[in-house]
Each structure stands twice: as structure tokens, then as C-alpha cells.
């Protein structure tokens, strides 16, 4: 019997995209700015947020959605401070998908928030593939990692709206060439804003905080 060909042409990200679109709508209605923070395990995402909470007090009302494969440890770290934190457990999945984030957002008091920060599951690959309806992805890379990570994981570093290089207080002890790293970043995205931050000492935090307040990371201060 003859075989029959059926043309389909169906986008496989369609379902995720549907939820991401709903989230964009929800954020627009409530004038809430949402960022999706992506970086390896241990790159300092939670430390960055801990420091941010203190600096944003009285300036900006914000909430954090913590994505982890298991445990609520990161959420506990942050909820010790004065900020609304929800834990999203991906249950083994290596990334957050739009549907889970959307449902968590619906539970937040969006009327009384300016910014929602989603800390994605620690991973440079998978979270970059999934749009969760955010205004922008922030790539976080610590100086204890390899400076060539941007060209090894080009998708994330080309799609992000800014890159944060963390733990810069450790630079004197490392062989990390931070200028070479910035060059690699600009090889995948020529206009990428790069912020150098040490959350422990607070160095460089001002530009990150100003970016959150102004919803723009391109400006140098």
C-alpha cells in the first residue's frame, strides 16, 4: 500500500509559548517587570538576590520565584529577609516552563509589586530554551568558571539582555581573564551590557540595582 505524507508544520514550543503569552499579558496589566535569572549551580544567583533585597528596601516592591530541582533551601535563605518568596520545584526537570511560572505569578499580589525575579534552575543550557514570558533573561557567570563559557553556551549569552559577572572580589586569586570573557560575550552578542559584581563586598551592585529600578541595564553609571 502507498505511504501517505502529511504536512504538519507545528511549532513544538507552542504550548509553552501560549503560557508565556498569558504571563506577558498579566505582567502588562499589572505593570510588573519580570526577569529570568539563569546561571550554573553555585554561580551566585541567590547571593546576588540576597544583597539586592537589602538595597531595594523602600525603593521597589519585589518578589522572587525560586526554581530548584529539589528542596526549599534557597527560598529559606531569602525569606529570612524582607521579601516575598515562592519556591517552584521543577521535580527533576532542568528548567522552569511557562505554565508553572504563570500559576505562581497568579498567586502573587501583583497589585502591590513592581518587579518579579525568577531564579531559574541552575543550568546554562535548558532554561535558555524556554520562554517564561519574562521581559528579559539575565545571564549570571561567576569568575570561578571558565571565561569561554559564553561561546560554549551561545544561546543563553546571545538571548540575554545583560550578563552579570559575579564574585569579582575573588579575581586576585584566580587566572580568570575578565576582559577576555567580555570579548567572548560580545562575540555572541555585540551590544551586550556586562555588569561586574561582587555581592559579598557590594562592589558593582549599584548598576544592577539601577537597572532593576529603571528597567534598563544598558546604561553605565
Amino acid at each position, binding site marked *: 500500500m502507498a*505511504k501517505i*505524507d502529511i504536512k504538519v508544520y507545528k511549532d513544538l514550543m507552542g504550548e509553552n509559548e501560549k503560557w508565556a503569552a498569558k504571563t506577558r499579558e498579566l505582567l502588562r496589566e499589572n505593570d510588573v517587570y519580570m526577569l529570568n535569572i539563569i546561571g550554573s549551580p553555585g554561580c551566585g544567583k541567590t547571593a546576588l538576590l540576597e544583597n539586592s533585597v537589602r538595597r531595594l528596601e523602600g525603593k521597589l516592591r519585589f518578589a522572587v520565584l525560586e526554581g530548584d530541582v529539589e528542596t526549599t533551601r534557597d527560598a529559606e535563605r531569602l525569606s529570612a529577609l524582607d521579601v516575598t518568596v515562592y519556591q517552584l520545584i521543577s521535580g527533576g*526537570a532542568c528548567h522552569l516552563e511557562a505554565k508553572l511560572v504563570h500559576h505562581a505569578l497568579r498567586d502573587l499580589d501583583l497589585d502591590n509589586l513592581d518587579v518579579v525575579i525568577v531564579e531559574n534552575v541552575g543550568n546554562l543550557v535548558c532554561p535558555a530554551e524556554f520562554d517564561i514570558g519574562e521581559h528579559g533573561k539575565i545571564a549570571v557567570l561567576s569568575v570561578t568558571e571558565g571565561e569561554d563559557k559564553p561561546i560554549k553556551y551561545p*544561546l543563553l549569552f546571545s538571548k540575554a539582555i545583560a550578563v552579570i559577572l559575579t564574585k569579582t572580589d575573588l579575581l586576585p586569586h584566580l587566572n580568570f581573564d575578565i576582559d577576555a570573557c567580555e570579548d567572548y560575550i560580545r562575540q555572541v552578542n555585540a551590544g551586550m551590557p556586562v555588569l561586574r559584581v561582587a555581592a559579598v563586598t557590594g562592589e558593582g551592585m549599584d548598576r544592577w540595582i539601577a537597572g532593576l529600578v529603571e528597567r534598563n541595564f544598558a546604561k553605565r553609571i
Partner: protein
Amino acid sequence: MHEFSICQSLVDAIVSELDRIAEPRPFKLISARVVVGAMRQIAPDILQTAYGLMTKGTAAKDSALEIVKVPATGKCDECGWNGEMRDAFIQCGRCGKAGIELTGGMELYLDNLEIEPDGQD
């Protein structure tokens, strides 16, 4: 390992397409073709494994998955170059400008299904 969640969307899409087929009945799915852009970080082997596991017990069981990779292409607003990019560098193939506009490479879609009538007739 996001291949498993992508595979779930793939299997859902195939099953819903197969549901809509009126003629011929009964039929058997021979193969499904999926198009994946080079900028997508998808490991074909893992996608194949996921496909074998996740089609079990569905209308797509025992079918083959054909994965077609398409290259990352770009357009340079500096020199007007248009073409296929090498490696991970999102760079102009002529003047070398970095971070040029991607015109292809993010594809991820179910392209077509091949079925054949199943049964005596």
C-alpha cells in the same frame, strides 16, 4: 535533559494530528519528521530515546523519528552578507562582525508524518 519535555510536546502534537485523520482508517504511523535548528541545544540521541519511550502505548508507537538539522543563518547589517554561520560564533561570514542578526537556527517544529493504511485492504 529538556529533550524529554520537548518530546512530550512532540508526541502530543503527533497524537492530535493522527486523531484528525479521517482517511485511510485504520492506518499506521511509519515516521515523524522533526526539524531542529542548529542553535537549539537539542541532543538527537536523547530525543530519540525519549521518543521511543514516550510513544509507547500511543497511536505513534513503533514509528521512527527523523530529526532534520537545519543550519544557523545570519544577516549582516554592516556589509550585507547573508549566509550560514560557522560554529557557535554568531558572526558575519564576510566581515566578521559579531552578534549579527539570526535569520535561522531556532527552528523546532513537527514537519510531517508518514502513514500507511493498516489492515487487510
